[in-house]
């Protein structure tokens, strides 16, 4: 065979390969990174981010929260009804659905899933929110497509909880791998990668009747290092990044405008609080400052939130109005506004409490110079910037702020065990829309009630009131009523400022321009919430991808 002939043949093969990938428009392998090895592949035990990612991509759910509209949508249940004061839910199930291994789906599978999930010996984190009252769940399979679940007591936000209950098969011989979601786990290299293949039996179809998902596979790289993740994204080796730091985001936006997505304020907050624990090993006069509403509000008023957003977050944040982000469409109390920077106002509040300025130094009634330390975790550059900006802001009202950065374990020890700290600056990641998941923060007896955890009895009248309102919202299923209670909680928190909310970070993500149908949102999973309708565009014939 002549050399020329060989070359022609080779280029022919090349073209053929090329055409075949282009023709499989709905195919393609999407790649992105997860930060750690999933602790489990069992959807009922998922508790960490990576395990939840696997559950999201492989599980089939009765009801799904649409991450974009923040409303519940029917999936394996075509309809549902909550009754009996939030104690009972009945589902009408989708017909002709089969598991990935071909086993048909029916109400028995839902019954089996709920029985397994609610078994106390399983210790499923997913099951905890269902357990408002001790007792058994009554499961009543009415027909292969109808099932009624009756819980021993009212369950707050019952229907939304099913967003994290992946249905497992009662009958399949391959129960642990058979799923109802868009993908199935195909390969797992411990510590390095997980490959998910398309579920050929997935029930969902697009508007044109074409079976979903479009993607052939999802390749998850286990990669802890965020810089490497970004590098690989820039090289085109991965196509999605769910969250990016503001600096990195701006650099990406400068180079690849179309890949950087700012979805606006997220649910995440940055906040500070004063230690109000009665037994804390700090001087009594300082405890008195920290228990004073005027003091806390004055500090809040002295802080320039707009500058924080502009400088520390390069504009990718919004001043926080309170405990609930405006991104939470339903639950946010729209009457609340971020605290305005108001130095004279702050000084007036302080004067009301007997504080006075003595040559640029604020002193309390007894002449103590006002100085306190704020602890935060070391290594978080943005948070350190926030602290230094606060240092400057508070100097304007004569307060000396000492910034102390600690390694995370010592920080946690101080805020939850020794209580040997004065103020703390931390971020809070919010995952759920519904206030029922925030009981562990707002009840005065709760352990995450950070300013004064696990109080035997509420220390202040406003904490009594918050306790009452939180219990009230939990004991009704009427969302309008619940919203009224919860709006009131938000107002009290804004007024008393036990947590001084600073900013809501924007949800910053990166999506390769080759990914089609992507619409990043603030809720997790930000970039692939609509995984079943994502696909990769055909590689550009002139680009390097053709080689």
């Amino acid at each position: 065979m002549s050399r020329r002939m060989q070359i022609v043949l080779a280029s022919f093969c090349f073209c053929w390969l090329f055409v075949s990938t282009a023709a499989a428009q709905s195919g393609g392998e999407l790649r992105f990174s997860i930060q750690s090895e999933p602790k489990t592949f069992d959807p009922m035990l998922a508790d960490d981010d990576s395990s939840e990612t696997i559950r999201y991509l492989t599980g089939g759910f009765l009801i799904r929260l649409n991450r974009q509209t923040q409303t519940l949508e029917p999936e394996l249940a075509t309809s549902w009804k909550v009754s009996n004061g939030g104690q009972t839910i009945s589902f009408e199930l989708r017909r002709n659905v089969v598991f990935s291994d071909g086993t048909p789906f029916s109400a028995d599978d839902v019954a089996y899933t709920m029985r397994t999930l609610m078994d106390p010996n399983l210790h499923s984190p997913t099951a905890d929110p269902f357990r408002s009252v001790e007792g058994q769940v009554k499961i009543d399979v009415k027909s292969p497509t109808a099932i009624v679940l009756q819980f021993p007591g009212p369950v707050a936000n019952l229907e939304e909880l099913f967003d994290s209950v992946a249905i497992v098969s009662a009958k399949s011989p391959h129960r642990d791998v058979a799923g109802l979601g868009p993908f199935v786990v195909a390969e797992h290299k411990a510590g390095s990668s997980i490959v998910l293949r398309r579920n050929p039996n997935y029930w969902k179809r697009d508007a044109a009747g074409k079976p979903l998902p479009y993607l052939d596979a999802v390749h998850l790289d286990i990669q802890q290092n965020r810089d490497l993740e970004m590098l690989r994204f820039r090289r085109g080796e991965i196509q999605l990044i769910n969250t990016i730091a503001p600096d990195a985001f701006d650099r990406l936006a400068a180079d690849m405008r179309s890949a950087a997505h700012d979805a606006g304020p997220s649910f995440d907050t940055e906040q500070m609080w004063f230690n109000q624990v009665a037994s804390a090993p700090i001087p009594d006069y300082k405890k008195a400052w920290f228990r004073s509403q005027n003091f806390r509000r004055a500090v809040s008023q002295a802080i320039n939130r707009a500058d924080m957003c502009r400088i520390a977050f390069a504009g990718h944040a919004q001043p926080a109005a309170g405990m609930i982000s405006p991104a939470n469409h339903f639950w946010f109390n729209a009457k609340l506004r971020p605290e305005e920077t108001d130095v004279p106002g702050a000084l007036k509040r302080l004067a009301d409490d007997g504080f006075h300025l003595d040559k640029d130094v604020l002193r309390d009634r007894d002449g103590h110079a006002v100085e306190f330390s704020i602890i935060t975790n070391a290594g978080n550059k943005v948070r350190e910037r926030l602290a230094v900006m606060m240092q400057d802001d508070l100097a304007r009202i004569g307060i000396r702020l000492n910034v102390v950065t600690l390694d995370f374990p010592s920080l946690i020890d101080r805020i939850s065990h020794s209580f040997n700290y004065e103020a703390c600056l931390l971020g809070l990641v919010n995952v759920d829309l519904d206030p029922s998941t925030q009981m562990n923060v707002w009840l005065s007896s709760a352990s995450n009630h950070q300013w004064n955890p696990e109080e035997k009895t509420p220390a202040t009248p406003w904490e009594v009131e918050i306790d009452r309102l939180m219990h009230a919202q939990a004991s009704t299923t009427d969302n309008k009523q619940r919203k009224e209670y919860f709006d009131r909680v938000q107002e009290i928190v804004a007024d008393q400022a036990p947590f001084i909310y600073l900013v809501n970070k924007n949800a910053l993500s990166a999506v390769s321009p080759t990914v089609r149908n992507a619409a990043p949102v603030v809720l997790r999973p930000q970039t692939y919430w609509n995984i079943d309708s994502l696909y990769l565009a055909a590689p550009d014939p002139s680009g390097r991808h053709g080689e």
Partner: protein
Amino acid sequence: MSRIRLVAIVFLALTFSAVLFADFVAPAPYAKQFREVPNAAPSLKHLLGTDDLGRDSFSRLLYGSRVSLLLAPAAALLSTLIAAFVGGSAGYLGGWFERVALAATDLSLSLPWLFLLLTVRALLPLNVAPVTSVVVTFALLGVLGWSSSGRVICSGARAIRESDFVLQAKALGCAPHRLILRQVLPNLQPVLSAQFWTSIPIFIIAEANLGILGLGVAEPLPSWGNLLRGLENWPEVKASPWKLAPIVALIAVVSCFQLIFQKRENLAS
């Protein structure tokens, strides 16, 4: 040859006086945040631009140099003195004392001193003024940083103990304290000063690393360490090369010290 030395001396003299009189030389207080112009490029108002909070980088460099140039040598002196005492007496006295001292040195070399520092920092009170924190940081570095120097000095001292001139001096009836003062120390002096000079940049960089762990100089006080942290972000530095100023200053000062010191060494030998 001596011209280079002269240049080094002049440079250091200028640096030191600029740094000592930073209060007059610096165009702005080191903590002042010009929030309208964060991350600014160099201009007449901000000779080296501003940092990510809008603080004047030139002023911060001056004050940061003051902290590091005064405290790193102090810490180096402290650690060299400890090393001289422990290593020197171990090597010179020999016997069981040497074994104990060397065991202590090895132990302190093998200690996970980062964790030790973390613990020490965790034990410190929270309301520490930035100036105190910087002194504490360098004092800790000085106290903990002696062990590798100690080993070098110990072997130097051992060689001196076994030398003929010490035997000769003993045979001449010199008293022990005179022996140490006049026979041993002058001969250890090159080793000691080498240890001293090499410790300075090590401590400056150690302080920078501690800063990453939250153990360094507390905000808003600048030091070369926390200024160097600004260089972590390579793409940003590439786009704004004037941010390299702190590292240029560090290299310049350390090499000037080395130049002057080397010359003295050559003269001595």
